[in-house]
């Protein structure tokens, strides 16, 4: 007995669509019905457009009727984080600043999803401008964790993770600057992959920290995640930082790559602050891999402790510049009180940005200031190189590094009012962004009170196929990902 439509896998749905057992419109309507049923509790979306989604579904059905179906994603609803541009749809970054902004253009990933026939569905909630780890920083209200409604879904891509977990979409896209895909994936019992920097085009992704941002997929299974990654990955001439690399068949790799892998366990990731239930779940996963013939080795990433510091210099520096364009002149919020250009800037930004965004802009402005640049930004870049080198050194002995995704399961809303406490949520994920590596968070257990736990597999540059295959090996032998929230 298979799940309700909204909880089925892409493989199942695609087969049903292909066999004409269901239509894309049926599927979209099922997802809409599910969303209507649970969204008031989850609040995964900032907005959605039923009409537009159904029109896309009809177009998919027509293609299929003509024998022109485009592959496994044709007719599959995919939710997009509200930081990825979709023509004619709002693009708010969960900020008052962009509350009324409608994108006149498609992001490259959006274009590629359309080419694959996927239905771009809804604008998913997030921390404002992707700054945060709980989706509490959204100007439009927090998203709830479907597994524990009083808890956060993680962040910043909390809406993307929660919507997939709650069956409000089949798959989704998020963005990850310091853990913003993986941490919410671990909080919401879904798979979330942050690709190698440069694998997926950033064109059309509202930049937070350009040298760290990557778009990546969420799915309820490794296979779903692999299918979406295959559709969005690959060189884009509109993004100078996108890499000219061949895109392997990630889905096929799940079958063809079977290990055994040499797994590195970085001792720095299992120290103070790690929740014992999380530690136990991750250690159980390590034992599973050992049982499959993998070798497990202790490795050291000695510069790990500098990760958070380096991250909050580089990310804030870049964001202070990236967010300068939100000035109330050409688009976005403009203060009604402003009388001249300087007041338009000051008032519009004061009113349009939330406190965390302001905090980071101020921090970033400071670290780039004349006289401080060398001490902060330049030094942070040097340490960043050391952090990357740590990983590359470790990969001489191991194929992959296994860690907890986050130090704890989902926490209650409002529990981390101190920004520094919030920043520590990303302690295990930030190094991956600084090093530009791929990493995936895979469900690996639940706390005693039913909150999901995820583990993180960190791969070598462009080693997504290997990572996904390894995650798939674990997933096949465990049922965590099939446990649905009670909503």
């Amino acid at each position, binding site marked *: 007995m298979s799940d309700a439509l909204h909880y089925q896998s892409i493989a199942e749905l695609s087969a049903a669509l292909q066999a004409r057992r269901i239509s894309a419109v049926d599927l979209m309507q099922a997802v809409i019905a599910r969303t209507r049923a649970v969204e008031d509790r989850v609040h995964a979306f900032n907005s959605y457009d039923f009409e537009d989604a159904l029109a896309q579904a009809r177009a998919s059905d027509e293609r299929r009727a003509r024998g022109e179906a485009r592959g496994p994603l044709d007719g599959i609803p995919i939710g997009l984080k509200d*930081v*990825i*541009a979709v023509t004619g749809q709002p*693009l708010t*970054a969960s900020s008052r600043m*962009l509350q009324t*902004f409608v*994108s*006149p*253009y498609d*992001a490259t990933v959006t274009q590629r999803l359309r080419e694959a026939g996927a239905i771009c569905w809804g604008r998913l909630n997030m921390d404002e401008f992707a700054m945060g780890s709980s989706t509490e920083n959204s100007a439009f209200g927090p998203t709830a964790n479907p597994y524990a409604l009083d808890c956060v879904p993680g962040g910043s891509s909390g809406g993307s993770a929660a919507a997939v977990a709650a069956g409000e979409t089949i798959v989704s896209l998020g963005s990850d600057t310091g853990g913003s895909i993986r941490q919410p994936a671990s909080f919401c019992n879904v798979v979330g992959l942050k690709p190698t920097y440069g694998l997926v085009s*950033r*064109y*059309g*992704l*509202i*930049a937070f*920290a*350009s*040298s760290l941002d990557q778009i990546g997929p969420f799915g309820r299974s490794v296979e779903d995640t692999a299918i979406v990654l295959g559709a969005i990955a690959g060189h884009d*001439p*509109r*993004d*100078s*930082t996108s890499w000219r690399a061949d895109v392997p068949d990630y889905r096929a790799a799940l079958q063809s790559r079977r290990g055994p892998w040499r797994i590195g366990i970085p001792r720095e990731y299992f120290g103070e602050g790690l929740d014992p239930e999380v530690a136990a779940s991750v250690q159980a996963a390590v034992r599973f891999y050992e049982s499959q013939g993998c070798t497990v080795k202790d490795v050291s990433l000695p510069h790990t402790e500098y990760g958070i510091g380096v991250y909050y210099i580089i990310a804030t*520096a*870049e964001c*202070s*510049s990236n967010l*300068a*364009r*939100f*000035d109330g*002149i*050409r*688009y976005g919020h403009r203060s009604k009180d402003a009388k001249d*250009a300087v007041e338009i*800037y000051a008032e519009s930004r004061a009113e349009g940005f939330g406190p965390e965004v302001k905090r980071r802009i101020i921090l970033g*402005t400071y670290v*780039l*200031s*004349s006289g401080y*640049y060398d001490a902060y*930004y330049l030094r942070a870049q040097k340490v960043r190189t050391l952090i990357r080198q740590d990983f590359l050194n470790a990969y001489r002995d191991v194929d992959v590094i296994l860690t907890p995704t986050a130090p704890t399961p989902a926490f209650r809303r409002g529990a981390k009012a101190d920004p520094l406490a919030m920043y520590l949520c990303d302690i295990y994920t930030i190094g991956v962004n600084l090093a530009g590596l791929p990493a995936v968070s895979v469900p690996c257990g639940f706390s005693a009170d039913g909150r999901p736990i995820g583990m993180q597999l960190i791969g070598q540059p462009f080693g997504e196929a290997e990572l996904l295959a390894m995650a798939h090996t674990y997933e096949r032998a465990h049922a965590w990902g099939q446990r649905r929230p009670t909503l």
Partner: protein
Amino acid sequence: MNYEAVIGLEVHIQIKTKSKMFTRVATGYGQEPNTLTDPVVLALPGVLPVMNKAALDAIIRAGLMLGCEIAPVCKWDRKNYFYPDSPKNYQISQYDQPICLGGSVEIELPAPARNIQGEHKRIPLTRIHLEEDVGKLNHTASDSLVDYNRAGTPLMEVVSEPAMQSADEAFAYLTALRTAMVYAGISDCDMEKGQLRCDANISVRPVGETKLGTKVELKNLNSISFVRDGIAHEIKRQLAVIAAGGTIRQETRDYDGQTGTSQSLRSKEMAHDYRYFPDPDLMPVKVDAAWKARLQAECPELPFDKQRRFYERYQIPYTITSVLVPDRALSDFFEETVALAGVDKAQAVGNWIVNDLLRELGTVKIGLEASRVRPAHIAELVRLIEAGTLLMNAAKEAFVDMFATGEMPAAVVERKGLKAETNVAELEQWCRDAIAGNAKSAADFRAGKESALNAFKGPVMKAAKGKANPRLVDETLRRLLAGG
């Protein structure tokens, strides 16, 4: 105490490319406001820049022409500041690693008279870097409007060393730089269209002092003559301040060319902190030797080098080269004509182009590209004169005709009956008559006085009503005088 001025110029030159610096939308001037825009130009959320390689090629060519060292890597930085004409509120520029370092611009200083070549010297450059232009603000009584058509146009900033001493030198520098850039097709450098803009850093110091005085930055020097006037005015102003016992304040001043006055815009204390940092959206671009070599091959000869070559190869005077050379199309036209007419006719060709062609073009106010007279016309004209078919006055008449009609000179001569007289028997008779009528000159010539020959030419020409071929006249006279 005697004071001297020290001047450095920062010249912004728009690079002539089809599309903008970091996106595909077209560049242009004079279009409806905000029509040359796209999501990248308007800095919509999520867009990314992609470098226009043609602009990088152009600035590297500029650097190679001016003897700059070309950086092995083209690196991009963000210059952060808020202003409504800057859509991202940062400008993509080059901070600590400009693509071109050093180099110099050869200039010609004004001479006492226009027909005398002035002194040449080299003004050293600090750097040339590439960046993107900003939009334009238009202020109305109640509002300010922004036009982003100009925003994102490739722009190079040429920074000279503080190495000029007078407004005349600055003027000569700007002229030479502009000529070189126009020559290479890098920019049209039309100041009225904002394609070339100039700021000047000016200070004064006691003669003999090696340390620089406090500098004042003069902005909005919107025409090449405003550059000269503005700098002269600022030097005078600073000297007056010092003469009155004051000290120069470091500041930025705005020069108003209409009134010939300047006003303080901001002082040093209000200087921006641009918070430069490497642009994470753009990868550094490696410029290898093969790339440079390819661009080097595309660099035209520098104007002053060409002027020297014209002098050496064609022996044409400064009065002609100083007109031909600053205009690349005109000097190419000249060389094409010489190629057809022969190097020994270069002076004649030069005279026809500079005196007659330019005069006619000026009269009807058209450019060289629209001229019906092409190199073949002038080459043929010169040949006809050389062959004795056409006399100078007739040639002048033929030129005006062919300028209007585009007909080849031979056809014009035919149609208008301008052909010189070549009836040998008749000519010989006129020559005999002339010699017979002037025994003294005949004796003088036979005694070796070459110039005495001219005494016979007038009467011959008169008899021929001006249509005699002068070379034939010359030959006939010599033969008759020698043979007796």
